[in-house]
Every structure is written in C-alpha cells, then in structure tokens.
C-alpha cells in the first residue's frame, strides 16, 4: 500500500475513516454542479417567463414533474420506515443505515417541494392552502403533511450534522445534539404518522378523481384503495431504495459501509411488504376491472387499447416489477448474494416508479369524453433540466454529508477487520 495522504480538510472528517482528497472531491462535485446550474437556469425561465416553457398543456396539466414528485416521495419513504423500524420496533441492526436514510429522505422531500414550487403557476401563493384549507381535498392533506414532515426531517437531520467532528466540539451544539437524540423516538413516531397520511393522500389524489375512471377507485370511507396501496408500496420500496443507495455509495467510495446482514434485512423487509402489496394490488385491479370502471361506463380493457400503453404495462407493473422482485427479495439465496439482491431492489424501485408513472401520465393520456383523442406528451428540456437539477442537488448534498458526517456507523468497524 502506498503512503496515504490525508485530505486537506481532514479536521472536518470523522476519525477512523478515509475520504478521497479534496481535489478529487472537487472534481466529483463539479459536473453535478454543472447540471444543477443548468437546472437552475431552467427553473428561472419557468418562474420568470412562465410555465409555457414546459410542454404541459390544458390536457396534460400534470407532467413529468408531478411524476418525479410522486416517485421521489415514494422512494424517500425509506426515511420514515427505517425510523419506525429502528425507534419504535427496535430493530437495532438498522442503526447502520438510519443516518443515510434520513439524509436521503431529506433530499427527496426537499427536492420534491422545490419542484412543486416551480410547478405551480403562482408559487408565492403557496400559503393560501394553509390559510384557506379545503379539508375535502387530498392535495390539501398532502401539502400540510409534507410541510410538517419536511420539518421533522430537518430536525432529524440536525443531530447528524451536529455530530460533525468540528461542530461537536462546540459545547452547546454537542449537548443539544445529545438532548435531541434522546427524544428522537417522538419525532420518529410523528414522522411515521405523517408519512402514513401523505403517502396515502398522494394515492388518494388520483383515487378520488371521478372524472378519470382509469384512476378512480372505491375504498374505505373517504379513502380510495389507492390511498392504502400507495402507503404499502412506499413502505415496501423504501428499504429497497436504501439498499440500492448504500450499495451505490459503497461502490463509488470503494468502501464497505454496512455489514452483509443489514443488506439481507433490508431486502427481507422490502420483499415481505412488496409481496403483500402485489397481492392487494392484484385484488384491487381485479375489482377495478370487473366492477368500478364498468360501473361508470368505461370497460377497463378499453384503457389498454392505446399504443404505447397496452396491457403489457399492467403486466410489467404487477408481475415484472412487482411479483418477481418480491419473490427475489424473499429468497434466501438472493439475500446472500449482493448483486442479485441489488438487482431485485432496483426492480422493486422501478416497479413503484412505474406505478406512479401510470397514475400520473397514463391517466391524463387517456380519453374521457367519447370524442377525445389519445394524447401524447413529451417533456421539454426545461422540465428535464429541472429533473436533473433535483438529482444533482441530491448527489451534492449526499456527497457532502458522506464526506463530513457519520452516515455509516459500521464503516469504522468494517475497516478494522
């Protein structure tokens, strides 16, 4: 082994772990900053010139941004679910990934809120929802819940930041971190409660749309079945996303970050929830095909008569990206072999993303009036650049967190053999 040079900012990096040189880190951050800059310019255009910069229109009122919001919030569910499993169900093995999960959750939710502020026509009026809430609207519930939850995530993120090597030397910050950590379970519990509701309401957004029989579902009281399905799918995919992200970060940083058992546990949890979700989704789809949709005059198979959204998309969502990864994640042999486990996790994430896509994009593409055409929509570069900006923002925040904060407590032990 060659002589190891310590990075210039070593005093900011926790003891017992190595990080790449500041120069290498700079060159890693640079391209992402470029993407972020382009995205910020696109955002500026959308805010200054108007939403005509996008390819959304009166028929496709929701586009790729809403799909991004829904997908990213479903993936960020790992934060609340891991917190719930750790602080409430006391699954201590997850201490290995809770910090990373909180950072990922924070990135996902803050990114989603950022994009939402660009997506609405009048962002400065965002507080109107709070001032004149319509409690019958799922979107009101989403707004309130996500705002609260983002605050919870910020408070959960703060002790991770305060444990930075330099910051924790400041006595007041160190003691505050200690005290807030002691009451973390309260926030984890509140986070679980809030997440339950907003994940559900995001599903409810589409489930209540009487005017869109493709999305409309019956359910329990005011909550359509999509409310419960979205919660379940988000809880199922959260651990998979964390698994996948941990693996990616360990590959990029070339380090062992968590013990193998942690990967297996995440896979097992994800697989268990995913198989239940697939079962319930299948039942829900059958009810929809046979009862709900025909009762409002829309035979379900009609929806799949349009290219490119044929029945293959339903099959892909439930079987290819639902049942198969669920079975893989539950399989002991797969849990032992990391590459297979990661593949299964990625398939599960893709399945949930596909579900969100189907709910947002396919719903709007389909005709409602008998003389409506099937519509197509492709995002404009500004929309894609904004999408890219969110991802770049996430990478940058995560990179800084990984470098200067203790995201993986097991890292030190694993490097000590």
């Amino acid at each position: 082994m060659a002589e190891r040079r310590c990075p210039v900012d070593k005093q900011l990096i926790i003891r017992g772990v190595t990080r790449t040189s500041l120069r290498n880190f700079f060159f890693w951050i640079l391209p992402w900053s470029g993407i972020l800059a382009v995205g910020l310019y696109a955002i500026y255009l959308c805010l200054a010139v108007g939403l005509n910069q996008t390819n959304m229109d009166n028929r496709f009122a929701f586009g790729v941004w809403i799909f991004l919001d829904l997908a990213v919030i479903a993936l960020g569910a790992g934060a609340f679910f891991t917190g719930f499993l750790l602080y409430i169900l006391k699954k201590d093995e997850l201490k290995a990934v809770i910090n990373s999960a909180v950072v990922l959750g924070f990135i996902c939710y803050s990114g989603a809120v950022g994009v939402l502020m660009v997506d609405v026509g009048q962002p400065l009026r965002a507080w109107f929802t709070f001032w004149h809430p319509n409690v019958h609207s799922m979107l009101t519930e989403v707004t309130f819940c996500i705002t609260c939850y983002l605050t919870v995530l910020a408070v959960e993120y703060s002790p991770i930041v305060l444990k930075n090597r330099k910051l924790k030397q400041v006595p007041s910050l160190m003691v505050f971190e200690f005290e807030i950590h002691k009451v973390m379970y309260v926030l984890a519990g509140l986070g679980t409660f809030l997440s339950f509701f907003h994940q559900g309401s995001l599903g409810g957004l589409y489930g209540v749309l009487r005017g869109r029989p493709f999305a409309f579902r019956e359910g329990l009281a005011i909550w359509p079945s999509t409310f419960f399905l979205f919660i379940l799918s988000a809880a199922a995919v959260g651990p998979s996303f964390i698994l996948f992200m941990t693996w990616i970060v360990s590959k990029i940083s070339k380090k062992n970050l968590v013990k193998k058992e942690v990967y297996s546990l995440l896979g097992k949890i994800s697989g268990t929830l995913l198989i239940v979700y697939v079962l319930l989704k299948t039942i829900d789809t059958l009810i929809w095909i046979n009862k709900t949709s025909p009762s409002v005059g829309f035979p379900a198979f009609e929806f799949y008569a349009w290219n490119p959204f044929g029945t293959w998309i339903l099959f892909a969502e439930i079987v290819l990206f639902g049942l198969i990864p669920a079975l893989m994640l539950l399989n002991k042999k797969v849990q032992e072999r990391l590459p297979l486990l990661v593949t299964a996790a990625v398939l599960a994430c893709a399945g949930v993303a596909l579900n969100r896509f189907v709910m947002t994009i396919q719903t709007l593409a389909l005709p409602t009036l008998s003389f409506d055409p099937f519509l197509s929509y492709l995002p404009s570069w500004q929309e894609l650049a904004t999408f890219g900006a969110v991802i770049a923002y996430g990478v940058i925040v995560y990179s800084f967190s990984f470098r200067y904060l203790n995201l993986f407590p097991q890292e030190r032990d694993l490097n000590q053999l």
Partner: protein
Amino acid sequence: MNTELKTKNRYGMVIDLDKCTGCGACMIGCAVENNIAPAHQNATDRTGITWIRVYEVENGESFPDNRTVYVPLPCQQCGKESPCVSVCPQKAVEVDPSSGIVGQIPVRCLGCRYCMTACPYHARYFNWWDPVWPQGMEKTLNPDVSTRMRGVVEKCNFCHSRLQAARAKAAAEGRRDLHDGEYLPACAESCPSQAIVFGDLLDESSEVSKAARSEKTFRLLEQLGTEPKVYYRSEQNWVRSIAEKKVTEMKKSANRVGGEAVPRG
C-alpha cells in the same frame, strides 16, 4: 365531496346539436365578454384559452354515411360531486349558493392544476402565458369581468357578472326574481341559430327547463355521477351516443384517419 346545494335558482343550458352549425360565434362572444386575451404566438390548440369550445365530431363512417356534428362545450357546471370543487386545495372553486354556478376565484388560485386533472370535460384552462392585450385593445375590455394573471386556472362561469347585472336591474325595478331570458351568458346571446337555450332549471315554465326534460336530451358522461347542468339535444341517434364511451364507436373513430375529434378554434 357532495356539492349538491339547495339553491334559489339552478341555471343551466340546453344546446341543440341539430341547430349548431359550428360557426364559433359563441366562442368569440365568450372571449369578448370575458376579457380573454389574444392567444400568445406560441399557443397551440392545447394551450389556448377557450371557455367555450366547439368540437367537431364525426361518426367514423365513410361516404355517403359520414356525418359530422358540432358540439359546443362550456363548463358543464356539475351539480353534484363536482370534481373540481372537491379537489381545489385552497377553496378557489366554489358553488354559488344562490345560482348553483360553479365559480372560480382567480386571485386565490395557486395554479396547481389539480382541478384541470379532475375535470373530465376538459373545461378548465390555464394561463400558460401572461395575458397581453395589444395596444388599443385594452379599450375593448369588459369592465364587469376581472382579468386573470399568468399561472392561474380559469373557466366558464355562465357569465356570472351578467347575472349580477340582471339582478341589480331587477332589484332597481323592485323585483326579486328574473324573467326567463333576462339573464343570458354571452354564448347564448351570440348564437345565430339560437342553439343554446339558457335559463333557470328550477323554473318549470322556463324554456330551458322544458327542453331539458325532453327525451331527446342527454348529458355528457352521466355515468360519472357529476350531474352537469349543461344538456345536449339531438334527434339523431348517433349524436346521442357521444354522451358515453361505447367501445364499438370508440374503436371506429380511433382507427380512422380524420376520425379523431378535432377541437375547433
């Protein structure tokens, strides 16, 4: 959300599709009355604002059985389970308790466009651009109707300001109730073939009430349960079939070139 209200008047319209020629005068009258700005140069048929919009619908047959009908489609003013009212996060859409008109509050609208997703009739329009009137054209603005800003949703409100003006006039004359035909939205007024009949559906003697009760009338997508207050009427069977999606009809128009509906305007 059940938006059914016990209202004093329930304004609705019956549009006779056999009389509509597709001239588009209703669209022009509406635009003038409601201060709709000229379309931006980059606007397309999916980003322009047309509170009432005439659709050209063909029956999908080939010559000599091909038929066309023109369908003017304003906001259907859903009377029950109005999709847009229940979904607006900040109550910027409200049902007027005195007239049953589903009104939009542009100054409260956030521009989230959830109502547009919810509306099955595509009756809602978003201001994708800042509305700009060329110099001199601002003199044509109707002072009774507020203009909207970029980034908010707008839609037909049965020319609500005309209702208020008519009621004020009636009050000045010492009346509480309006006569049938005293309050007409701009589209009904502009139609040269008088295809649009408008009035109070609760008033059994009104023309609209009688027309709505005829067996040749139908409403669009009735099975959704929205209870729209806009009725359509035609003697032709195939025209009445556009009310609901029927597989065979749909398949027919989908496969043919030119069989797709082309929104006019």
